[in-house]
């Protein structure tokens, strides 16, 4: 037990270390502010999203006299979102850490090692689920009309049940992570296989979450069927509902017991199963094919910039967690555009009802740019250098050349799928040429701005000593601020449109916004090449 506690503390510290701001450059007060900003974003994100959903759902359910249904529905969503966040982390933390050799040499059973890692994952999910269920519970208390005593009893039951909610997403994330590790361990191109499996899993999860929305709409029309579903396909959540609100004999205690068992048994069974195979899985993953038959025929030559860009590209597409966490938006953009093209026949009448293609262009632009803001490899590209940074600092290249290569790759990864999706929408829905061109230009400029912004954030909040790539790309402060900062920019653009930008017309607004983004990017680039170069030298 003591060994488990030590390992748990270690793994949780590794996960949380990404938020730590030591090892960066700049003034400590500013770094601290940025770090707290990242933590605030992490805290506010589930609170805000859950708050909006919970109160609107509960209001609708309350009209049908079933305010309590908010609780299981929001619990389902908590699990889905947790799973989305921790699926890749599970693969990276449990099977991809660089501490595997050390872990396997410890005089600790593999079960304890795996449990220590998975419990760290569970703790992260617990924080998220706790924050997510807080507004849901508040909404229930507001709309259910409980007495003070009933409210207190509900809170006590919630406190007893909540710690077991994250077991389900943690189990599924571990299962998914195992699947990714298992598949990639059997293939020659492990990174590519990992990326493909990850994209498929992510798309399935996304499709599933869309189905939840549809199911919710459908079930709102028939509240009774909601209850039935909770005791068939969504049994853990039905038991959770009974545990929280049960009034029969036992006051929901049997339901609470069942709910805990459904969470605990698969969790520990899976951890035990993986524990028995852990050494074999890691050995297979660590095994590399070293060939000895290479014959040198000639070496291609290019300039320093092209070489650095090629190196960045190889790292990006060769690191599963990097490409999945910062490039999934590209798949979503192209997938959504292809879907919109395929559904053109059904979509056109709806668009006509909304006022035609021109009327929906701003919303489409908002969706494309919001998705683009999740594609930002630059915001962790310096941190990803880690211990290999000496190679770049030793090389006779200007920091500007290095920054250009990193920014260009990031801009291309965002601009190419965005431009592709705009082109597909243009082909399918025939917007006015100037509108389409304006949207195209704005998306390309936004990609450029995001890249430069991401690089700026990473220079201010570098994380050079992290042993796990997944943690860098998934939850380092620069990663969070890079993505949410870009989203904030999209929000400001929407505000600008609403505050009078529409008077310029769509194409005119796009031109203005593109110009503003280019100006902002130029200002940031100037800072990067000056102060940023000094920061790089000091790293």
């Amino acid at each position: 037990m003591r060994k488990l506690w030590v390992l748990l503390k270690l793994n949780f510290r590794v996960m949380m270390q990404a938020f730590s701001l030591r090892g960066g450059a700049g003034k400590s007060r500013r770094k601290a502010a940025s770090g707290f900003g990242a933590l605030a974003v992490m805290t506010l994100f589930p609170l805000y999203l859950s708050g909006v959903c919970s109160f609107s759902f509960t209001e609708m359910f309350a009209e049908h006299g079933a305010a309590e249904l908010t609780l299981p529905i929001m619990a389902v969503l908590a699990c889905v979102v947790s799973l989305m966040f921790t699926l890749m982390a599970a693969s990276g933390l449990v099977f991809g850490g660089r501490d595997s050799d050390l872990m396997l040499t410890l005089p600790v059973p593999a079960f304890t090692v795996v449990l220590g890692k998975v419990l760290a994952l569970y703790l992260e999910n617990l924080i998220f689920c706790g924050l997510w269920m807080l507004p849901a519970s508040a909404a229930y208390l507001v709309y259910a009309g409980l007495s003070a005593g009933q409210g207190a009893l509900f809170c006590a039951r919630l406190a007893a049940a909540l710690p077991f909610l994250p077991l389900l997403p943690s189990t599924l994330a571990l299962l998914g992570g195992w699947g990714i590790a298992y598949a990639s361990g059997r293939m020659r191109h492990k990174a590519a296989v990992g990326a493909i499996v990850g994209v498929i899993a992510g798309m399935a999860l996304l499709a599933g979450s869309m189905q939840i929305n549809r199911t919710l709409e459908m079930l709102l029309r028939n509240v009774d069927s909601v209850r039935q579903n909770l005791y068939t396909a969504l049994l853990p959540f039905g038991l959770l509902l009974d545990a929280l609100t049960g009034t029969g004999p036992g006051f929901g205690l049997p339901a609470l017991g069942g709910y805990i068992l459904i969470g605990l048994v698969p969790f520990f069974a899976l951890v035990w199963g993986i524990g028995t195979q852990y050494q074999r899985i890691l050995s297979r993953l660590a095994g590399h094919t070293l060939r000895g038959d290479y014959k040198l025929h000639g070496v291609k030559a290019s300039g320093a910039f092209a070489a650095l860009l090629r190196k960045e590209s190889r790292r990006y597409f060769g690191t599963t967690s990097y490409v999945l966490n910062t490039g999934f938006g590209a798949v979503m953009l192209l997938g959504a555009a292809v879907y919109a093209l395929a559904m053109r026949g059904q979509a056109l009448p709806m668009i006509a009802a909304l006022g035609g293609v021109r009327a929906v262009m701003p919303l489409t632009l908002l969706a494309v740019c919001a998705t683009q803001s999740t594609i930002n490899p630059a915001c962790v590209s310096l941190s990803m250098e880690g211990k290999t940074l000496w190679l770049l600092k030793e090389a006779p290249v200007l920091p500007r050349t290095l920054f250009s290569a990193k920014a260009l790759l990031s801009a291309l990864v965002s601009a190419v799928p965005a431009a592709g999706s705009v082109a597909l929408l243009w082909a399918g829905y025939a917007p006015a040429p100037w509108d389409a061109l304006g949207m195209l230009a704005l998306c390309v400029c936004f990609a450029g701005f995001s890249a430069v912004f991401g690089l700026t954030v990473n220079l201010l909040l570098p994380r050079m000593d992290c042993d796990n790539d997944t943690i860098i790309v998934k939850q380092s402060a620069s990663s969070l601020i890079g993505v949410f900062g870009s989203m904030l920019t999209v929000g400001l653009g929407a505000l600008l449109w609403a505050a009078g930008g529409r008077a310029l017309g769509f194409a005119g607004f796009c031109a203005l916004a593109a110009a503003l983004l280019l100006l902002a990017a130029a200002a940031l680039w100037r800072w990067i090449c000056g102060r940023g170069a000094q920061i790089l030298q000091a790293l």
Partner: protein
Amino acid sequence: MLQIDHFSKTYPGGKKAVDDLSLTVNAGEIMGFIGHNGAGKTTTLRCVAGILNFTEGEISVDGHSVKTQPIAAKQITAFLPDNPDLYEFLTGIQYLALIADLYNIPKEARAQRIQKYADAFELTGALGSAIGSYSHGMKQKLAVISALMRTPKLLILDEPFVGLDPQAAFVLKGFLHELCGAGGAVIFSTHVLEVAEKLCSRIAIIQRGKLVKIGETAAVVGDESLEQVFLELAREGGTHA
């Protein structure tokens, strides 16, 4: 070739790693840089290579200031750290091509040099495999090849023989002599005093960031062994080697 004048390096937090160090490495020389753990050897070598910044003193390579003309200085310098972390997602040949591109090595010359050094270190057959699949010694060999193929005027090596098998160490010593014969200079740190004594034309000993002895190897060693000299200096300085 290498001129270090009154160089000091203080780390954030106030720890002075190197204090007023001055030394010269001339063309054709192999200088051994010796000191106990934490004496300031690696800090000095990393500052010479342009990896660490510094504010006090001046370092120049073939007349190019590391501080004010870093690109020109780096272009003629090669640095090999004690534990080279390389890009594991690249193959050996991709890594060498990257270095060749960064150092503007002509297309014809790069293949010829890679062939020469990779054959000598018996690594040619593995160049098509990912660096992630290499053993520690193979990574060390690849890093040595990438340093030598630049034909640097100044070669900086931090514990170069750690991880190399005896044959590769022998080959490396041969190439160091070849480089010096062609007018280059080598400075390397090591804890293997026998190697330093046999290989180096000059020796510099550093203690607690200060240079305590420098000169021709024969003059430094005198009638004793380098190990005895080093231990005596350590005792006088109140440190344990």
